[in-house]
């Protein structure tokens, strides 16, 4: 049985619909991320679970109990905010202790728990410091310790890393995941950063316009995007518009490409072929046309450290291919290249799909 359920949640603010319909179920100790661009309803969903907003309709169920109408202070949910949530008048220690004081725990038990938690987030030495004496990363660690101190039933995180430097962000997200696994706490995480969501979650729910576009394991979301929106939002994707030619072949422009995923589709159907830049292969094409490949001209090189992204203009399509540096150097700007990809690497989506298409929320379980 799922531990935390969002059942048919719907939320309107006046004329604005923040959440169309949301159905999500988290297993005990699962780490699920709500991922989407700003305005997709992810934060609203989290705030409804926390009890800061009331849904227009739908229910929030924790461990079989409907908590939709339980006030936030009786829900036992630990929440970590974006920033500035520490009480400025209390030390790190005082902040962590606050929830325990409210629960009227005895002084000895309280002090032991505070020590334990500050130790857990690696801040034992900063117990007596005030929030303004702590760095942004340290403040979020204290906020995490404070949320965990009350032994919450669910841990909620609302873009907790978005205000931090890139390096601290990566470090802290690994730590959040480590703590979450160690404590086995059911966690709902909101972020707009796809890399963040993919790297720490058991499952990711991609949201757009208040609806789930796709929900599933990070690898599935990345490798098999279910909708054009997901394909666009998660990582970089080459989009090739074309029509199904023969079985397992798609015609893009004047070229016929082998695409295994197109097998069984009716001939002539308009489709979108999605190819990751890392699966696209480039070779010099000094001669004329190369069969099974898109021919074009190298537009630009973008240096990305371990790889170089080569931009190619092929007909109407601007393609991106990620190559190791030395390989890219063999294809200078202006040279003619043939771009191909393994037949299994292309993902096919129907173009005639209605815009509001979404897979059922429970898919992938």
């Amino acid at each position, binding site marked *: 049985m799922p531990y935390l359920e969002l059942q048919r949640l719907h939320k309107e603010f006046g004329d604005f619909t923040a959440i169309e319909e949301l159905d999500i179920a988290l297993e005990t100790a699962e780490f699920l991320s709500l991922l989407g661009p700003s305005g997709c309803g992810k934060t609203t969903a989290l705030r409804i679970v926390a009890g800061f907003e009331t849904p227009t309709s739908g229910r929030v169920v924790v461990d079989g109990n409907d908590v939709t109408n339980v006030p*936030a*202070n009786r*829900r036992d949910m630990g929440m970590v*905010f974006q920033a*500035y949530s520490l009480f400025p*008048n209390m030390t790190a220690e005082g902040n962590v202790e606050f929830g325990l004081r*409210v629960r009227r725990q005895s002084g000895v038990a309280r002090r032991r728990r505070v020590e334990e938690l500050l130790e857990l987030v690696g801040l034992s030495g900063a117990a007596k410091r005030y*929030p303004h*004496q702590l760095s942004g990363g340290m403040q979020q660690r204290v906020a995490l310790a404070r949320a965990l101190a*009350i032994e919450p039933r669910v841990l909620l995180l609302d873009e907790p890393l978005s205000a931090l430097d890139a390096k601290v962000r990566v470090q802290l997200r690994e730590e959040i995941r480590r703590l979450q696994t160690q404590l086995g706490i059911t966690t709902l995480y909101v972020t707009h950063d796809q890399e963040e969501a993919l790297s720490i979650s058991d499952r990711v729910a991609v949201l757009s316009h208040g609806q789930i576009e796709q929900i599933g394991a990070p690898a599935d979301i990345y490798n098999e995007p279910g909708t054009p929106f997901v394909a666009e939002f998660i990582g970089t994707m080459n989009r090739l518009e074309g029509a199904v030619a023969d079985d397992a072949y798609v015609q893009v422009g004047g070229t016929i490409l082998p695409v295994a995923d197109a097998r069984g589709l009716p001939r002539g159907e308009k489709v979108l072929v999605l190819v990751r830049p890392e699966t696209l292969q480039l070779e010099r094409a000094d001669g004329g046309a190369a069969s099974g490949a898109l021919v074009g001209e190298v537009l630009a090189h973008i240096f990305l450290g371990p790889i170089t992204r080569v931009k190619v203009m092929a007909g109407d399509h601007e393609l991106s291919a990620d190559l190791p540096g030395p390989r890219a150097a063999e294809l200078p700007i202006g040279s003619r290249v043939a771009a191909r990809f393994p037949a299994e690497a292309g993902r096919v989506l129907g173009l005639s799909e209605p815009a509001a298409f979404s897979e059922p929320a429970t898919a992938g379980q």
Partner: protein
Amino acid sequence: MTRRMPRSGWVWLGIGAAYFFIPLAATLEFSLKEASGYGFSSYRQILEDPEFRDLLWVSFKLSVETIVLSVLIMVPGVYCVHLSYPRVRPVVEFLSVLPFVVPPIILVIGLLDFYNVDRAPRWFIENPWFLVPGYVVLSFPFMFRALDVSFRSIDVHTLTEASHSLGAGWTTTLLRVILPNIAAGALAGAFLTFALVMGEFTMAHIALFNTFPTYINYIGQTQANPAAALTIISFGLTWLALLGILLVGRRPGRGVAPVAGR
């Protein structure tokens, strides 16, 4: 600050200091004058006057009562406006400055009419407490501004939600989380209110109550040298109060420092 002040700065500072200290020095000199030479007889006369102590005490009590009532109304009020009704803030701001626009003399006539003998209990009308509601209204502009600035400097929403998510109710949130972080503003408002009540003459005079300011006025009109002594005394008292509040506000770890550090 190691930067030296330019010469023109010293000139302006000198002019400012002169403007402030010359009248004070003149008053001090006059208050020490006796029939022949100088002495403290005027001060002795004032300090030995039982009315001085009684009325100082009356005004002090009125100040404290006004501050308590004003804080009780304004802190939750401004908190509520910042948290839930930010769009009403300009309206509240406008209302809070009304006492500057409507002179106290109008206010007190209105109050006298409102609390006429038939409507209010006698013990209330015959007691200087009668002045407190009016003084609370007069304190609004000071209290509102001081609190408003404090509330703006903290993230009211996040702090409130953080407190709630940790299990605290409204009272605990207000007393343990919000109040300590706006204490500096509340203290500033309280001090201004204190100074206001200790010097408010119009309302007390028209409503026929004797307070410290009406006493100063009475002495001023009847005895010249003791009046100067009284001015110096009341000046000293005000400064002591200011000093006290500064010291309280500077207590480490409280309001002032963390708010300023953000």
